[in-house]
């Protein structure tokens, strides 16, 4: 069997490789080329050199959206993971109704980002109106925290499931050995549980960081970047640049921003993966 796989590996690899090439590698390379062009459709692209990149790096709205996304990612990643881990800890304690709680916490993840965005827009605006505060569309601070609340609401359940799986995979012997060694609950958490759930932490941080930077539909539905692009994340800024303006140069600018965005997400994710993977242990 193994010999046959070794001999005929191209046949096994070919379907996936073809799909990956057509669906990802070719569009990516074409996108890379187009980021140096002016175009309206991909057939009539004309070479524009590095002007698109120069524009992107000097576009204040783009720079603002980078800092907005970075801030949003840091806050949302911290909150989502701390809360998800705390809930996972609570729901792995053999208390009654854990399955019900797990399902309830996971449910928001089944609702699409756009729908959630509009639901939370209504909820938050109602609350702000009752408190006689400015609505989301005119207050960037409320917009930022609104997005944080929305993302926490959507993502905590998902991350909780990953943390629960990680916590449940820790052999009970480790915890019992720690209890006999003299560890209290906090010491068991910090010195035994957390080091042993590092693989889950790696995955959850990776997902939270990439989701934070890639935030789009929730951003579009909740604030649409208002007021005046102040609550606009990177993805929404790219979308606005590409589709929101008329003229061949805007497509090129948008494409250049998309390439920068892609590189940025890859670099940050790799740094994060490297940092947390080094702390993972094999049981």
């Amino acid at each position, binding site marked *: 069997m193994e010999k046959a796989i070794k001999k005929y590996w191209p046949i096994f690899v070919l379907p996936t490789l073809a799909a990956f090439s057509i669906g990802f590698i070719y569009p990516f390379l074409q996108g890379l080329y187009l980021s140096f062009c002016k175009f309206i459709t991909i057939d009539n692209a004309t070479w524009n050199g590095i002007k698109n990149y120069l524009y992107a790096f000097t576009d204040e709205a783009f720079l603002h959206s980078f800092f907005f996304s970075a801030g949003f990612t840091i806050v949302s990643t911290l909150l989502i993971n701390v809360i998800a881990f705390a809930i996972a800890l609570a729901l792995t304690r053999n208390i009654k109704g854990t399955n019900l709680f797990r399902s309830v916490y996971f449910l928001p993840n089944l609702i699409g980002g756009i729908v959630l965005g509009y639901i939370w827009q209504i909820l938050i605006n109602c609350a702000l109106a009752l408190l006689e505060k400015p609505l989301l569309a005119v207050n960037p601070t409320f917009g930022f925290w609104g997005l944080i609340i929305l993302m926490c609401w959507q993502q905590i359940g998902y991350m909780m499931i990953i943390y629960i799986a990680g916590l449940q995979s820790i*052999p009970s*012997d*480790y915890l*019992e*050995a*720690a*209890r*006999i*060694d*003299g*560890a*209290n609950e906090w*010491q068991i958490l910090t*010195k*035994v549980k957390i*080091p*042993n759930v*590092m693989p889950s932490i790696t995955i959850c941080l990776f997902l939270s960081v990439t989701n934070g930077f890639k935030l789009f539909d929730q951003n579009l539905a909740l604030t649409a970047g208002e007021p005046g692009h102040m609550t606009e994340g990177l993805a929404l800024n790219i979308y606005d640049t590409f589709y929101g303006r008329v003229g061949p140069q805007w497509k090129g600018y948008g494409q250049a921003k998309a390439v920068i965005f892609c590189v940025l997400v890859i670099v940050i994710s790799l740094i994060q993966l490297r940092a947390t993977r080094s*702390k993972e*242990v*094999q*049981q």
Partner: protein
Amino acid sequence: MANITFKHVVKAYDSRDKKGEKIVVVPDLNLEIYDKEFVVLVGPSGCGKSTTLRMIAGLEDVSGGELYIGDRLVNDVEPKDRDIAMVFQSYALYPHMTVYKNMAFGLELRKTPKEEIEKRVLEAARILELEPYLKRKPKELSGGQRQRVALGRAMVRNPAVFLLDEPLSNLDAKLRTEMRSQIAALHKRLQTTFVYVTHDQTEAMTMGDRIVVMKDGNIHQVDTPQNLYNQPCNMFVASFIGSPQMNFIDAKVEKDGDAYALCFEGCRVPSNKAELADYVGKEVVVGIRPEDLHAEGSFNSSCGFPIHVEMAEMMGSEIYVYFNVNGNPDGKKKIARIPSRENIHSDDDVRLLIDVNRVHVFDKETQAAICH
């Protein structure tokens, strides 16, 4: 003083069985383990031996009764405050810590000074020959080395009680024999109370000062290895201790002048044990260890019976001879250990002689020992 006392200890779980009754794992346990003693809890799977050990450790709540370590009632005392150390079947070494850290962890939590920690860890590592591995992580060690680290982690704490839960069951046969003698030597060196759980009767026989034989949460016999082997209190203990296990054959007690005779398989085994007086004319079960059956010609005995050899297993120095008898209370094939020079083969018809001084007699109904 680190004696351990169980007074009517009960362990029950909240979950219920098919009849709707609470699941009781240990119904009523009474046991005294003396200071500095090496006691082995032994029994088949599900007999409650690990639960008993975990109650001593504080990892299982005591549902009823009183459990003392020394003079202190420990029913509600946290594991960390019981002055115990435990070696787990899976070793339970923290995978993210080095061997040194694993051994030092308990001491660090107890805020022991660094110099003292280093001294104790290095001393334990020297005794257990772990010095070259102190900077390694558990995954970089062999099974035997991991086991020694687990022992070292317990040792450095100088606990009053050492608890060992089937610590050798993940090792291969050769390593197990080696570690057995290491643990026994460790007990001598440390002079601490050891409570050791195993289902392997060879481990129990070779290591324990006393052995506690358990079944269904009940203690059947607590005694020295020699007494357990020579004077089992019932058929369960007789069958559990000894490998291959004791043969049981139905027999009838008859009066033979002033004495008695045990009649089975056409032979009469004379006995002058007064305990048999109440059983004259009644059926009993005779227990004969495989090594107390001998091939004709190599042993002098007036009692014997013919057998047809169902199977002969050559074990090197001896042959395990399997045969059937008519009165067969446990329905198992009987077995005799015959020196290999006797040259017995499958399908042979031979005569086996009984060492009449080593016959055990059990009550057929209660299965309790009548005499040995």
